[in-house]
Protein backbone atom coordinates (compact mmCIF):
# COMPACT_ATOMS: atom_id res chain seq x y z
CA UNK A 1 0.00 0.00 0.00
CA UNK A 2 1.22 3.51 -0.84
CA UNK A 3 1.69 6.39 1.56
CA UNK A 4 -1.22 8.23 -0.11
CA UNK A 5 -3.53 5.29 0.37
CA UNK A 6 -2.52 4.90 4.01
CA UNK A 7 -3.23 8.61 4.62
CA UNK A 8 -6.64 8.38 2.96
CA UNK A 9 -7.46 5.21 4.92
CA UNK A 10 -6.60 7.03 8.16
CA UNK A 11 -8.87 9.95 7.20
CA UNK A 12 -11.73 7.59 6.37
CA UNK A 13 -10.96 5.36 9.38
CA UNK A 14 -10.90 2.14 7.40
CA UNK A 15 -8.15 -0.44 6.83
CA UNK A 16 -6.14 0.49 3.72
CA UNK A 17 -7.13 -2.85 2.20
CA UNK A 18 -10.71 -1.53 1.83
CA UNK A 19 -9.35 1.07 -0.57
CA UNK A 20 -7.49 -1.47 -2.73
CA UNK A 21 -9.35 -0.36 -5.93
CA UNK A 22 -7.60 3.00 -5.58
CA UNK A 23 -4.09 1.45 -5.62
CA UNK A 24 -3.72 2.38 -9.29
CA UNK A 25 -3.62 6.09 -8.44
CA UNK A 26 -0.44 7.90 -7.50
CA UNK A 27 0.22 9.66 -4.20
CA UNK A 28 -0.48 13.08 -5.69
CA UNK A 29 -3.97 12.04 -6.86
CA UNK A 30 -4.71 10.25 -3.60
CA UNK A 31 -3.41 13.23 -1.64
CA UNK A 32 -5.74 15.56 -3.57
CA UNK A 33 -8.67 13.22 -2.89
CA UNK A 34 -7.72 13.09 0.79
CA UNK A 35 -7.65 16.90 0.87
CA UNK A 36 -11.17 16.97 -0.61
CA UNK A 37 -12.47 14.46 1.93
CA UNK A 38 -10.89 16.41 4.79
CA UNK A 39 -12.32 19.64 3.38
CA UNK A 40 -15.79 18.11 3.27
CA UNK A 41 -15.40 16.90 6.84
CA UNK A 42 -14.24 20.31 8.05
CA UNK A 43 -17.22 21.99 6.35
CA UNK A 44 -19.56 19.49 8.01
CA UNK A 45 -17.89 20.09 11.38
CA UNK A 46 -18.43 23.85 11.08
CA UNK A 47 -22.08 23.44 10.07
CA UNK A 48 -22.60 20.93 12.88
CA UNK A 49 -21.02 23.18 15.52
CA UNK A 50 -22.99 26.22 14.33
CA UNK A 51 -26.26 24.26 14.55
CA UNK A 52 -25.35 22.96 17.98
CA UNK A 53 -24.52 26.45 19.24
CA UNK A 54 -27.93 27.64 18.03
CA UNK A 55 -29.65 24.72 19.78
CA UNK A 56 -27.78 25.38 23.05
CA UNK A 57 -28.98 29.00 23.07
CA UNK A 58 -32.43 27.64 23.91
CA UNK A 59 -31.10 25.93 27.02
CA UNK A 60 -31.15 28.13 30.15
CA UNK A 61 -27.61 29.26 31.05
CA UNK A 62 -27.63 27.51 34.43
CA UNK A 63 -28.38 24.16 32.69
CA UNK A 64 -26.12 24.64 29.68
CA UNK A 65 -23.10 23.07 31.38
CA UNK A 66 -25.09 19.95 32.24
CA UNK A 67 -26.37 19.61 28.68
CA UNK A 68 -22.89 20.18 27.26
CA UNK A 69 -21.61 17.42 29.54
CA UNK A 70 -24.34 15.13 28.16
CA UNK A 71 -23.14 15.98 24.68
CA UNK A 72 -19.65 14.76 25.44
CA UNK A 73 -18.21 17.75 27.27
CA UNK A 74 -16.18 18.87 24.27
CA UNK A 75 -17.80 22.25 23.90
Amino acid sequence: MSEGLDRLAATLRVPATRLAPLEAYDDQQLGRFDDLVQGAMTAEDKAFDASLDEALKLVPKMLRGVVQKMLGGSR
Partner: protein
Amino acid sequence: MTALTSSLEITKLAHEMHVDESELAFLATTSPDDLRDLRGIVSHAMFSRHESRVKGLAAVSRKLPAAVTAKITEIAMGPMLSARVAAVMDPADAAKLAGHLKPEFLAELSVHLDPSRVEGIIAKLDSALVVEVGRRLLAQGHLMALARFTGVVSPATSLDVVDGASGAQILQLALFIDEPSVVDPILAGLPDETVAEIAAATAEQGEAADALLAALHEDSRARIASLT
Protein backbone atom coordinates in the same frame (compact mmCIF):
# COMPACT_ATOMS: atom_id res chain seq x y z
CA MET B 1 -26.74 -4.98 -7.38
CA THR B 2 -24.57 -3.38 -10.05
CA ALA B 3 -23.79 0.31 -10.33
CA LEU B 4 -24.52 1.80 -13.76
CA THR B 5 -21.54 3.88 -14.88
CA SER B 6 -18.44 5.40 -13.34
CA SER B 7 -19.46 8.92 -14.36
CA LEU B 8 -22.82 8.54 -12.58
CA GLU B 9 -21.11 7.19 -9.48
CA ILE B 10 -18.67 10.13 -9.56
CA THR B 11 -21.66 12.49 -9.67
CA LYS B 12 -23.10 10.80 -6.58
CA LEU B 13 -19.75 10.80 -4.75
CA ALA B 14 -19.20 14.48 -5.57
CA HIS B 15 -22.67 15.26 -4.21
CA GLU B 16 -21.87 13.35 -1.00
CA MET B 17 -18.65 15.34 -0.58
CA HIS B 18 -20.15 18.69 -1.69
CA VAL B 19 -17.45 19.12 -4.32
CA ASP B 20 -17.56 19.75 -8.06
CA GLU B 21 -17.58 16.59 -10.18
CA SER B 22 -14.54 17.80 -12.10
CA GLU B 23 -12.49 17.47 -8.89
CA LEU B 24 -13.11 13.71 -8.97
CA ALA B 25 -12.70 13.22 -12.72
CA PHE B 26 -9.46 11.31 -12.19
CA LEU B 27 -11.50 8.46 -10.64
CA ALA B 28 -13.15 7.71 -14.01
CA THR B 29 -10.99 4.61 -14.51
CA THR B 30 -12.34 3.03 -11.32
CA SER B 31 -15.19 0.57 -11.87
CA PRO B 32 -18.76 1.72 -11.05
CA ASP B 33 -19.10 -0.90 -8.30
CA ASP B 34 -15.80 0.11 -6.68
CA LEU B 35 -16.88 3.76 -6.81
CA ARG B 36 -20.15 2.85 -5.15
CA ASP B 37 -18.22 1.10 -2.37
CA LEU B 38 -16.00 4.17 -2.01
CA ARG B 39 -19.11 6.36 -1.74
CA GLY B 40 -20.36 4.12 1.05
CA ILE B 41 -17.05 4.43 2.91
CA VAL B 42 -16.94 8.23 2.52
CA SER B 43 -20.59 8.53 3.50
CA HIS B 44 -20.06 6.44 6.64
CA ALA B 45 -16.95 8.44 7.59
CA MET B 46 -18.86 11.72 7.22
CA PHE B 47 -21.97 10.60 9.09
CA SER B 48 -20.18 8.85 11.95
CA ARG B 49 -18.41 12.04 13.05
CA HIS B 50 -19.76 13.68 16.22
CA GLU B 51 -21.57 10.44 17.00
CA SER B 52 -21.23 10.71 20.78
CA ARG B 53 -22.58 14.29 20.83
CA VAL B 54 -25.40 13.38 18.48
CA LYS B 55 -26.33 10.43 20.68
CA GLY B 56 -26.32 12.81 23.65
CA LEU B 57 -28.79 15.08 21.84
CA ALA B 58 -30.96 12.08 20.99
CA ALA B 59 -30.90 11.08 24.67
CA VAL B 60 -31.99 14.60 25.69
CA SER B 61 -34.79 14.54 23.10
CA ARG B 62 -36.13 11.25 24.49
CA LYS B 63 -36.79 12.96 27.83
CA LEU B 64 -39.08 15.54 26.23
CA PRO B 65 -42.55 15.20 24.66
CA ALA B 66 -42.30 14.77 20.86
CA ALA B 67 -44.20 18.03 20.27
CA VAL B 68 -41.67 19.98 22.40
CA THR B 69 -38.72 18.26 20.73
CA ALA B 70 -40.23 19.11 17.35
CA LYS B 71 -40.40 22.83 18.25
CA ILE B 72 -36.76 22.82 19.42
CA THR B 73 -35.78 20.86 16.30
CA GLU B 74 -37.36 23.33 13.90
CA ILE B 75 -36.48 26.53 15.74
CA ALA B 76 -32.97 25.83 16.97
CA MET B 77 -31.34 22.69 15.59
CA GLY B 78 -31.92 23.17 11.89
CA PRO B 79 -32.16 20.45 9.24
CA MET B 80 -28.55 19.22 9.23
CA LEU B 81 -28.18 18.65 12.97
CA SER B 82 -31.72 17.28 13.15
CA ALA B 83 -30.90 14.75 10.41
CA ARG B 84 -27.86 13.60 12.37
CA VAL B 85 -29.95 13.15 15.52
CA ALA B 86 -32.72 11.35 13.60
CA ALA B 87 -30.13 8.90 12.29
CA VAL B 88 -29.18 7.71 15.78
CA MET B 89 -32.73 7.68 17.18
CA ASP B 90 -34.84 4.57 17.31
CA PRO B 91 -36.72 4.61 13.95
CA ALA B 92 -40.07 4.53 15.81
CA ASP B 93 -39.07 7.61 17.88
CA ALA B 94 -37.77 9.37 14.76
CA ALA B 95 -41.04 8.65 12.92
CA LYS B 96 -43.05 9.92 15.91
CA LEU B 97 -41.02 13.13 15.93
CA ALA B 98 -41.41 13.47 12.15
CA GLY B 99 -45.18 13.47 12.62
CA HIS B 100 -44.83 16.75 14.56
CA LEU B 101 -42.53 18.45 12.05
CA LYS B 102 -43.65 20.61 9.13
CA PRO B 103 -43.30 18.89 5.71
CA GLU B 104 -41.12 21.72 4.41
CA PHE B 105 -38.69 21.21 7.30
CA LEU B 106 -38.77 17.43 6.79
CA ALA B 107 -37.86 17.92 3.13
CA GLU B 108 -34.82 20.03 4.14
CA LEU B 109 -33.89 17.46 6.79
CA SER B 110 -34.18 14.62 4.25
CA VAL B 111 -31.39 16.08 2.15
CA HIS B 112 -28.99 15.59 5.10
CA LEU B 113 -30.22 12.19 6.27
CA ASP B 114 -27.78 9.28 6.44
CA PRO B 115 -28.70 7.08 3.44
CA SER B 116 -28.21 3.91 5.46
CA ARG B 117 -30.87 5.03 7.96
CA VAL B 118 -33.51 6.20 5.50
CA GLU B 119 -35.32 2.88 5.14
CA GLY B 120 -35.92 2.25 8.85
CA ILE B 121 -37.44 5.70 9.37
CA ILE B 122 -39.47 5.95 6.15
CA ALA B 123 -41.08 2.56 6.76
CA LYS B 124 -42.74 3.97 9.88
CA LEU B 125 -43.98 7.24 8.36
CA ASP B 126 -47.48 7.92 7.12
CA SER B 127 -47.44 7.46 3.32
CA ALA B 128 -49.26 10.79 2.74
CA LEU B 129 -46.42 12.56 4.59
CA VAL B 130 -43.81 10.64 2.56
CA VAL B 131 -45.55 11.71 -0.66
CA GLU B 132 -45.68 15.36 0.41
CA VAL B 133 -42.01 15.40 1.39
CA GLY B 134 -41.09 13.56 -1.81
CA ARG B 135 -42.95 16.10 -3.94
CA ARG B 136 -41.12 18.92 -2.20
CA LEU B 137 -37.77 17.24 -2.87
CA LEU B 138 -38.75 16.84 -6.52
CA ALA B 139 -39.87 20.47 -6.84
CA GLN B 140 -36.63 21.68 -5.22
CA GLY B 141 -34.49 19.51 -7.49
CA HIS B 142 -33.11 17.31 -4.71
CA LEU B 143 -33.28 14.25 -6.94
CA MET B 144 -30.43 12.39 -5.26
CA ALA B 145 -32.15 12.63 -1.88
CA LEU B 146 -35.44 11.64 -3.49
CA ALA B 147 -33.74 8.63 -5.11
CA ARG B 148 -32.87 7.33 -1.64
CA PHE B 149 -36.55 7.53 -0.69
CA THR B 150 -37.69 5.98 -3.95
CA GLY B 151 -35.51 2.97 -3.29
CA VAL B 152 -37.32 2.14 -0.05
CA VAL B 153 -40.98 3.10 -0.60
CA SER B 154 -43.67 1.24 -2.53
CA PRO B 155 -44.07 1.80 -6.29
CA ALA B 156 -47.52 3.28 -5.57
CA THR B 157 -46.00 5.90 -3.26
CA SER B 158 -43.28 6.68 -5.82
CA LEU B 159 -45.91 7.09 -8.54
CA ASP B 160 -47.82 9.54 -6.34
CA VAL B 161 -44.61 11.51 -5.80
CA VAL B 162 -43.72 11.75 -9.52
CA ASP B 163 -47.29 12.40 -10.66
CA GLY B 164 -46.99 15.42 -12.95
CA ALA B 165 -43.19 15.29 -13.18
CA SER B 166 -41.56 15.55 -16.60
CA GLY B 167 -40.00 12.54 -18.33
CA ALA B 168 -36.58 14.18 -18.03
CA GLN B 169 -37.01 14.59 -14.24
CA ILE B 170 -38.12 10.98 -13.84
CA LEU B 171 -35.22 9.72 -15.94
CA GLN B 172 -32.74 11.71 -13.84
CA LEU B 173 -34.33 10.33 -10.68
CA ALA B 174 -34.11 6.78 -12.07
CA LEU B 175 -30.42 7.27 -12.82
CA PHE B 176 -29.77 8.20 -9.18
CA ILE B 177 -31.61 5.16 -7.77
CA ASP B 178 -29.01 2.64 -6.61
CA GLU B 179 -31.08 -0.45 -7.49
CA PRO B 180 -32.34 -0.33 -11.12
CA SER B 181 -34.97 -3.04 -10.48
CA VAL B 182 -36.83 -0.47 -8.34
CA VAL B 183 -37.48 1.47 -11.55
CA ASP B 184 -39.40 -1.31 -13.39
CA PRO B 185 -42.65 -1.22 -11.37
CA ILE B 186 -42.63 2.59 -11.40
CA LEU B 187 -42.27 2.64 -15.19
CA ALA B 188 -45.08 0.10 -15.46
CA GLY B 189 -47.41 2.47 -13.61
CA LEU B 190 -46.61 5.56 -15.68
CA PRO B 191 -48.84 6.62 -18.59
CA ASP B 192 -47.57 6.15 -22.16
CA GLU B 193 -47.18 9.90 -22.60
CA THR B 194 -44.71 10.13 -19.70
CA VAL B 195 -42.79 7.02 -20.76
CA ALA B 196 -42.49 8.54 -24.26
CA GLU B 197 -41.00 11.66 -22.64
CA ILE B 198 -38.56 9.46 -20.71
CA ALA B 199 -37.60 7.67 -23.94
CA ALA B 200 -36.96 11.01 -25.62
CA ALA B 201 -34.87 12.20 -22.66
CA THR B 202 -32.57 9.13 -22.77
CA ALA B 203 -30.86 10.56 -25.86
CA GLU B 204 -29.54 13.46 -23.75
CA GLN B 205 -28.16 11.22 -20.99
CA GLY B 206 -25.90 9.11 -23.24
CA GLU B 207 -23.95 6.29 -21.63
CA ALA B 208 -25.72 6.50 -18.26
CA ALA B 209 -29.18 6.14 -19.83
CA ASP B 210 -27.94 3.25 -22.00
CA ALA B 211 -26.66 1.51 -18.87
CA LEU B 212 -29.97 2.09 -17.08
CA LEU B 213 -31.96 0.73 -20.03
CA ALA B 214 -29.73 -2.34 -20.14
CA ALA B 215 -30.35 -2.93 -16.42
CA LEU B 216 -34.16 -2.73 -16.71
CA HIS B 217 -36.48 -5.70 -17.16
CA GLU B 218 -37.06 -6.66 -20.80
CA ASP B 219 -40.74 -5.62 -20.53
CA SER B 220 -39.68 -2.10 -19.52
CA ARG B 221 -37.16 -1.94 -22.37
CA ALA B 222 -39.75 -3.14 -24.87
CA ARG B 223 -42.27 -0.53 -23.72
CA ILE B 224 -39.74 2.29 -23.94
CA ALA B 225 -38.66 1.09 -27.40
CA SER B 226 -42.26 0.98 -28.59
CA LEU B 227 -42.80 4.59 -27.49
CA THR B 228 -39.57 5.96 -28.92
